[in-house]
């Protein structure tokens, strides 16, 4: 393969990754890393560096639209970022102490459980859930206009402290395993904080860039960011995220939810396989 073909191929794959990632609140590394390593024979270290770039590109590319359209809840995002960034530091310290294989198995199981819980769905009405003092003081209540449903959706996030704790765990995991923690962030916002699914994926998108930026510096210093691989990834993902962020409002919440569950099962399987095979 010639370098120009390589750039075009990586760009095309990244476009798909950015599109899917921006809809589901994931970084896009899910598609980019296996294609780079298995199909294009790129070194795994370089592929991981490119996936960090992909996470940041998905996040910034999509969040510009999500913030404007109120699909991302900025207050929820900024409050929860305290947890993810603290977790990133813990992860950096724990790396080397905790065996990664055990973690892959553990989080494969957690994600598998989340997928089943999300599949079963939750109560459709949040009435009856007491709004705790944290969610009230933090003024997390918000609304967005849902293009697919054709109405303004008003929602009240609950269990802010549990959400913060889960984000700390998500941040630690992404620091330890170098994987996008969007797969953990979305179920935490969906199941614990009871946000609408589109708000969960859009807010996850808003946050993952900050978590990834915290570790991107290390990858840069270690020489894991290969400009020739990362450039087509960045351009492709940004284009995909741009298209995706204009699509999320128009597709039904049901479709977003089921697609997310399918992808979550894939990620959980991938992690379990990694953990068992080593």
């Amino acid at each position: 393969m010639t370098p120009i073909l390589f750039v075009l191929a990586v760009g095309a794959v990244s476009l798909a990754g950015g599109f899917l990632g921006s809809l589901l609140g994931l970084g896009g590394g899910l598609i980019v890393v296996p294609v780079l390593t298995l199909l294009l024979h790129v070194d795994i270290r370089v592929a991981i560096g490119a996936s960090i770039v992909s996470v940041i590109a998905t996040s910034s590319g999509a969040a510009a639209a999500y913030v404007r359209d109120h699909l991302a809840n900025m207050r929820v995002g900024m409050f929860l970022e305290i947890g993810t960034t603290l977790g990133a530091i813990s992860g950096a310290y724990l790396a080397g102490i905790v065996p990664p294989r055990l973690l892959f198995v553990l989080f494969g199981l957690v994600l598998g459980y989340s997928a089943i819980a999300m599949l079963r769905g939750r109560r459709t009405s949040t009435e009856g859930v007491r709004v705790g003092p944290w969610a009230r003081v933090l003024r997390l209540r918000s609304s967005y206009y849902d293009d697919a449903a054709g109405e303004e959706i008003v929602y009240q996030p609950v269990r802010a402290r549990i959400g913060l704790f889960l984000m700390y765990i998500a941040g630690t995991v992404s620091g330890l395993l170098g994987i996008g923690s969007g797969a953990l962030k979305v179920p935490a916002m969906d199941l614990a904080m009871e946000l609408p699914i589109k708000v969960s994926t859009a807010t996850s998108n808003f946050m993952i860039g900050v978590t990834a930026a915290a570790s991107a510096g290390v990858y840069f210093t270690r020489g894991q960011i290969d400009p020739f691989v990362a450039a087509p990834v960045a351009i492709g993902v940004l284009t995909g995220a741009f298209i995706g962020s204009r699509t999320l409002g128009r597709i039904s919440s049901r479709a977003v939810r089921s697609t997310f569950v399918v992808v979550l099962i894939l990620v959980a399987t991938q992690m379990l396989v990694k953990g068992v095979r080593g």
Partner: protein
Amino acid sequence: MNEPRWVDTAISNLLRGGVICSVTVIALGLTVSFVHHHEYLTSRSALGTLTRSARYPNTIGAVVRGVAAGQGQAIVMAGLLLLIATPVARVAFSIVVFGIEHDRMYMLITAAVLTILLVAFWVGAASG
């Protein structure tokens, strides 16, 4: 219930600006690489050295020197660094925005996030 309109617009524009700047610089760097190395369009062996070498600039100084020398790889790297800086700039900018809105609680929350983020960079630099 929601933030005032201008807050959303300002933060959205900052993110869009960062993304547009970085993608322009990255595309420019890629173009420069291909113009300098015509063999990239035809050679099959050139790819191996591009995806396996460990000689990419990995300090800010090296990137700046490379950009000054007009190297495509260094220009791409400068664009990637702009991309990485965008979420950090968003957090820093939010402190100012909430300050203007006299929203002291969210000013404190975003300031805490920025502090933790800077500590994370420092911890990362020490361990990396």
